[in-house]
């Protein structure tokens, strides 16, 4: 993996390689360099398998992280490629022409995170959700607990006690 990283570092403006156990490593690449990097990895370095494509919401930093996980089966290498994109105008570049299956991932990212991939087939077709009008639910600012509390009724009749407060109320109610 280090050899490949050394080779591609300059050309594709790669960040430092972050190796993990086994043949797994992560690297960050600017959005403009993603396509070139993926093509070269796929066509020259045997990273032919798109393992997954997903997003991580770094809401505090105003960023989405797109993770493209590629695998070279022969050498047992897996490379997680990170692309940081702006969270407000979330847009990525479609790679469905390289891996047709990427269209499904991109459709999901549009629905669940609101990340746009212009040109990706059937991008706006409902995938998992039907008739969803709220925030894209996998965004960190979508509060699933609040949603569930608004949408569903609790069965009444439950009450609990904090042991520490309960003991205080029974054993030393005035605090001493």
């Amino acid at each position, binding site marked *: 993996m280090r050899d490949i990283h050394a080779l591609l570092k300059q050309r594709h403006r790669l960040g430092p390689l972050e190796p*993990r*156990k*086994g*043949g*797994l490593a*992560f690297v960050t690449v600017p959005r403009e360099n993603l396509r070139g990097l993926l093509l070269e990895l796929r066509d020259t370095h045997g990273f*032919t*398998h*798109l*393992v*997954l494509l*997903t*997003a*991580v*919401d770094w809401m505090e930093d105003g960023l989405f*992280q797109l*993770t493209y*996980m590629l695998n070279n*089966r022969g050498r*047992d290498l*897996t490379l*997680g490629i990170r692309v940081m994109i702006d969270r407000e105008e979330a847009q990525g570049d479609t790679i469905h022409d*390289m*891996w*047709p*299956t990427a*269209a*499904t991932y991109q459709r999901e990212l549009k629905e669940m995170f609101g990340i746009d991939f212009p040109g990706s*087939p059937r991008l706006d077709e*409902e*995938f*998992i*959700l*039907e008739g969803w009008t709220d925030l894209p*639910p*996998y965004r*960190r600012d*979508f509060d*699933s*607990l609040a949603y569930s509390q608004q949408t569903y009724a609790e069965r009444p009749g439950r009450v609990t006690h904090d042991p520490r407060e309960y003991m205080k109320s029974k054993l030393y109610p005035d605090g001493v």
Partner: protein
Amino acid sequence: MFSFKPDRSQYPAPGPDGKLQIDLETGKYLKLWQGPNHPGITGNMSVELTVCGDEVVEGKTHVGYLHRGFEKLMERRTFIQVFPIVCRVCVPEPDFNEYCYAAAVEDLAGIEAPEYAQWMRTLILEMGRFNSYMMFLGGIGGALGLGITGQWMTYVRDLMLDRFEELTGARIYHMFILPGGVRGHLPEGFEGRMEEVLDTAERYLADIDRVMFSNSVFKTRTKGVGVIDPALFEPYGVTGPNARAGGVAKDLRKDSPYLVYDQLDFEVATATDSDIFARATVRRADVQTSIDLIRQILKKMPKTGPAMAKIPNVLHWKIPRGETYIKGECSRGEYGYYLVTDGTGYPRRINVRGPSYTHAMALLEHLIPGTNISDVAALMVSLHTYPPEIER
């Protein structure tokens, strides 16, 4: 002999965006929903077919009937609290979720599960694989009108569930592989009772060979049908038996050995025809591999030893910022957990990579046009799809 030949002339013209211009008003085409409740569908999923006569010109996979937002739920739970829900992502083979999640947490937390736990996990995963294949062998028969295989395989699966029950304390959602190790040791006399199950399984599988794999009807309906061109494997992310049936010996147990697979003796089954029949035979051979592996594991695994590594107090377990991807070869291909942590007590993001995600979406939609309506069920089942992996 009769064989279905698609008639391309019936297809509507593609528009400028490459999509088919289907005008239902012409009366030439019909929309047909297969699923979400249909004997030819595994799980809650449906395929929206556009048919012309008995030929399918377009198919779209619909999921979401069972969407529970697991990945989101996991972000709201502490690392230990994620453990009870991961298994629910996949009913028929839940153990891969437990293993991948536990291993991902261990990787980022810098914990090594003890040797006994590694063996036990391997055993559990092979038992789960066996059960998953029981579902498949029953299901593929069912999809072609062969009802009896489903009943036999359900019975054999039930026997294995008995073993799961005595080992893990539950039949379906075992919740046995904790981050840090496993919850316990083998019960006394387990090996003997397991051997009885494997014996019974082998007898029933011999019957399956006779009633299904040697069956002229089954062969006729599956050979040469639903062929996946091996050239599609990489573009469509095809892994596991679906790829092995096309001659590519993709198997993470060999390609990227995890747990104790490097200490076990087994061959990866392959076939060449890449059709429904080939995919079924590969899985039939895989069942035998699993049976052999279970026997090997029970023979080779240590009899004692700690089941759990020392882990921090789970009530306030924080994991430093990092990300990892843990994968394994499940009965359907590459199963993986992508875990991102941010230094808090909760995962920042968990993404579950299930093989059905690519197989039943992009690949299936690519394969369906040109098939006969009656083959769609067998085609879909032959890809061995578990819809919850898609919608999570």
